[in-house]
């Protein structure tokens, strides 16, 4: 998901950050937590938005990584090396975030988890590639990240492409829809998901009646939706974010549009149900499952809640897994040199994480990421409606 959201919002983060900085004591660029004693510690760089408008995600991710580190170190570390986290606050700002990659290089880290926002992860990956440092992404879903030919880059979460595919499978195989109109917001994330939805929907035998881009900053979509209504599609698929999606369902329903609304987790945000109101109910949204909704993540969620008295957010489980995957690679390599870790990461195929199995393919993507379809309930909460991996 958040690839796109993050990309879009990062431009504003600087301003918003000032206003809404989370009260996180001592966050100021970077801070080291030293746990290790004795043998050389394994230094793992962790870059996330720890302050600013996206801090709620970043802080939860950091908490999850600390849980994983504590449990590794409690068992004596990995091959006798204690794990040490070097955290860096990207503030969701590209310039600040990219500087983090240089900071990690200067600190001589052995591996990196980051950088949350795709528009930071992609340029940062080039810097780490040049320095030969492994990077595991736990939240950046933009396909491009792993398509740069960088052997050091891995991703435990899914990609936007896979999300479009899951939506298409759901529409064809579960809803038995024959026709769809596709709209996207012409941004990297939304357009990507919609494009893959359209391709796969056609491949599965469905018919795309129309695929159009919209400007997400408009307030009036009635003309467009009047045309959509005239096409009588079974499905209205939208690739984009919550504010525009809310307006689309509201205006569509008020024009008498009956099509089922399918969208992505960019739409899982307060503005969708706020702007959409009752019209949002019954919409289907594809997303990586929240840790709370995953059987395999139950112990993790329980420990998280016990430790932090808060619920983990969407990507916390992936961050937990990212750290453990690196630890596993060190064990496999019997070495903590970055080069050895990269080689070992490429050999990870059957790792069992809290979010599911991790199986890196040749470009570093996880071949078994889970996407599910949520349905917006009448109390505006989201409930898993279909899980393609469940059977």
């Amino acid at each position, binding site marked *: 998901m958040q690839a796109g959201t993050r990309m879009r*919002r990062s431009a*504003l983060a600087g*301003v*918003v950050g*000032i*206003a*809404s900085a989370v009260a996180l004591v001592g966050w100021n660029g970077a801070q080291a937590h030293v746990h290790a004693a004795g043998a050389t510690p394994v230094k793992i760089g962790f870059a996330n938005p720890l302050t600013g*408008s996206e801090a709620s995600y970043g802080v939860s991710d950091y908490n999850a990584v600390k849980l994983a580190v504590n449990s590794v170190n409690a068992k004596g570390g990995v091959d006798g090396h204690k794990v040490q986290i070097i955290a860096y606050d990207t503030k969701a700002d590209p310039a600040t975030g990219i500087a983090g990659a240089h900071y990690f290089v200067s600190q001589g880290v052995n591996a990196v988890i980051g950088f949350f926002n795709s528009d930071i992860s992609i340029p940062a990956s080039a810097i780490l590639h040049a320095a030969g440092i492994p990077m595991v992404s736990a939240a950046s879903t933009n396909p491009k990240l792993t398509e740069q030919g960088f052997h050091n880059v891995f991703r435990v979460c899914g990609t936007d492409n896979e999300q479009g595919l899951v939506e298409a499978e759901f529409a064809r195989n579960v809803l038995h829809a024959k026709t769809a109109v596709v*709209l996207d917001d*012409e941004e990297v994330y939304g357009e990507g998901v919609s494009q893959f939805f359209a391709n796969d929907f056609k491949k599965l035998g469905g018919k795309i009646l*129309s695929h*159009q*881009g*919209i*400007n997400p*900053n*408009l*307030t*009036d979509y*009635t*003309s*467009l939706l*009047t*045309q959509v*209504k*005239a096409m009588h599609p079974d499905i209205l698929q939208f690739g984009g974010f919550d*504010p525009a999606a*809310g*307006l689309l369902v*509201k*205006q569509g329903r*008020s*024009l*008498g549009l009956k099509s089922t609304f399918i969208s992505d987790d960019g739409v899982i945000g*307060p*503005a969708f149900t*706020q*702007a959409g*109101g*009752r019209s949002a109910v019954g919409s289907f949204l594809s997303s990586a499952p929240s840790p709370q909704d995953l059987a395999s993540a139950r112990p993790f969620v329980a420990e998280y809640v016990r430790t932090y008295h808060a619920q983990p957010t969407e990507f916390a489980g992936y961050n937990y897994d990212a750290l453990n995957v690196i630890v596993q690679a060190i064990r496999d390599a019997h070495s903590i040199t970055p080069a050895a870790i990269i080689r070992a990461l490429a050999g990870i195929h059957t790792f069992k994480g809290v979010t599911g199995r991790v199986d890196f393919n040749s470009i570093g993507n996880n071949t078994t990421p889970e996407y599910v379809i949520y349905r917006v309930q009448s109390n505006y909460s989201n409930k898993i409606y279909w899980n393609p991996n469940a059977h």
Partner: protein
Amino acid sequence: MGTLAQQLVNGVVIGAVYGLIALGYTMVYGIVRLINFAQGGLYAAGAFIGLEVVEILQAHRVESPALLILAALAGAMIATGALAFLVERVAYRPLRRAPILSALVSSLAVLFLIENVIQLLTGAQPQTYPSLLGLQPWTLGPITLAPSGLLIVLVALGLMGAMQWFVQRTRTGRAMRAIAVNQEVAGLMGVDVRRVVALTFVMGGALGAAAGVLVGLNYGTITFNMGELAGLEGFTAAVLGGIGNVPGALVGGLVLGLLQSLITIVLPNQWNEAVVFAVLIAVLAFRPRGILGERVAERA
């Protein structure tokens, strides 16, 4: 056929919004020959102030939708009028004798300033208007119209009429038109030019605020940067109708709205904004006076 009729309704509703914003541009331009780009910001400010009024009143258990809507409109128009007064003082008056480009740039700066202040106060997330007019749109055969859509059209018509009456029939309106021709001579007649110019800005701000509140009521969602695109659309409508001409503002808005909605029948939605810019360029190039034309402003 049903689609065409529905598109006509759509076009009239959004066109009325454009017309209201255009009215603000036209008032200020008609009097001081300034394209006040702050208009978009005032529109956004009005939308947020209106929401604030609704929320405060709802917190005090005011429930009557009519009362809430009236209060939101009145509160937003007054407060935004005051804001526009401040804008005139700070960003326009000191530049009265400077080249018009300075004032133009200054008005753009005000647009972004207002946006940033709104963002600092409310965040970057869109805000939601409660639906005060009920969710159920009226249906007539193939056509649906939300009650708030009708409200937009009626308020736009009413305010346009009020402005036309004010400018054409009142003493102050006459003074405004005199200032448009010759500020110095208007002053010789005893017109306090500064005060009337300030009043013009206030009225422009209030008109923008009305548009903002109505858009909030009808579409439900407002964002801090809603004034950029809407400001441009309103400006295009003003130019299309003949900037400086009060009925022209509404005519320009309606024509632009209809054009945009009818064009979606034949062209994909991506063309929607291209249409706005194409119209703007075409009007500026081939008929700068717009549809109704600016009243002959020969300076005697």
